[in-house]
């Protein structure tokens, strides 16, 4: 029944476009199939992305979980930052999430961990219409890149605080957070370009 209706619709499309009609029903069927594929993956991707992000916010940002989640991650970032600052010749000491020196001190808190941009990236990759291999590779490389970039950002912020104290809040709150989220989206776009070339299903849909 559905197939008959699809064929009717296909012929209607074919009637409107004479050049398509001339190429026969098979061609029209292919076009209709492609059209169906085009519409549904986008909608599906949007729904999956929204659900994953809702899950993330529901679990990670639940009121009872605000303090405890990712505590060890924050301590690790603080510890590594302290080590790098010592290597750079600063008298940095680390106490839990606090990184202190005689010149400038700060605390690595939730929001400094780049967890949200990573969640956006991972959700976007999982929601995208690609096969499992590129998705797994994309998530691993993307999440690791964002973690390392965030680590560089925290060290950079120490130096901003050290030399341009007045600009610290502006760079930290306004620029870095936005830049990081945008980086996650750009990362997803770059991954999408790469995955499109290596996903057989999408190559098939193109033809």
């Amino acid at each position, binding site marked *: 029944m559905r197939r008959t209706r699809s064929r009717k619709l296909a012929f209607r499309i074919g009637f409107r*476009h004479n050049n398509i009609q001339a190429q026969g029903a098979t061609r029209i069927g292919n*076009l209709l199939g*492609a*059209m169906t594929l085009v519409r549904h993956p986008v909608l599906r*991707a949007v729904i999956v992305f929204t659900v994953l*992000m809702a899950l993330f916010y529901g679990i990670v940002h639940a*009121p009872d979980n605000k303090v405890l989640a990712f505590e060890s991650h924050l301590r690790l970032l603080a510890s590594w930052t302290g080590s790098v600052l010592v290597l750079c010749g600063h008298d940095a000491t680390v106490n839990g999430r606090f990184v202190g020196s005689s010149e400038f001190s700060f605390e690595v808190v939730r929001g400094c961990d780049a967890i949200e941009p990573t969640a956006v990236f991972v959700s976007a990759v999982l929601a995208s219409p690609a096969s499992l291999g590129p998705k797994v590779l994309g998530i691993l490389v993307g999440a690791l890149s964002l973690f390392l970039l965030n680590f560089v950002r925290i060290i950079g912020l120490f130096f901003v605080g050290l030399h341009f104290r007045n600009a610290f809040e502006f760079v930290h709150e306004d620029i870095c957070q936005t830049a990081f989220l945008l980086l996650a989206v750009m990362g997803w776009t770059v991954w999408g370009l790469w995955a499109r070339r290596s996903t057989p299903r*999408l190559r098939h849909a193109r033809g």
Partner: protein
Amino acid sequence: MRAARVIGGFFVQSMIVYSLLLAMWPILGGTYANLFRTTGNCLVGLGSNGRVWFSPSAKGDENHDTQLVLVDPQTGAGRRVSLSSRGHGYLPTAFVLALTLSSPIRWRRRFWATAWGLVWIDAYIALKLALFPVAYGAGDTIELFPEVLSDALRHVFWVIGTSATGWMIVPLIIWALATIRHKDWPTIVYGTACPINSNA
């Protein structure tokens, strides 16, 4: 390689435009904060019979330039919540403007994307202003819902309205809606125009 260069260029350009717009805050801030409060009062203040209103904050710094005053109708006790017109309104607007103005599309399309982006981001800010009293509790307003539902509503509002990520993700969605046309999606998903369009 060309696509990566376009994406990189878009990122750098949008961050420059965004930084420039933020640097204009000291000039535009006063006017924007007034507009923010006036809009809030028009949306919720007038209909609340004097129980909810937005007013300038006594502190006067950019993170607390506005206060939401909530009065309990039964006890008459007032509660004040500090808000930032910069954080809740100006930053998301600047982000949408930066994204749409830097998008690698033709100028005519960029203009319309910016116009639509501004319309939608203002609608989002208006929605937030209208929901502030619900989120922070205005006398019997919040008691309309059971406690669990109220907590859930506050949490949802926190995510989409007041969390830093919330105000960054919403502008991103608005930018995508304003900039990417329906017929562009096949190109994004499959890397080619829709076969029907290309053959017709």
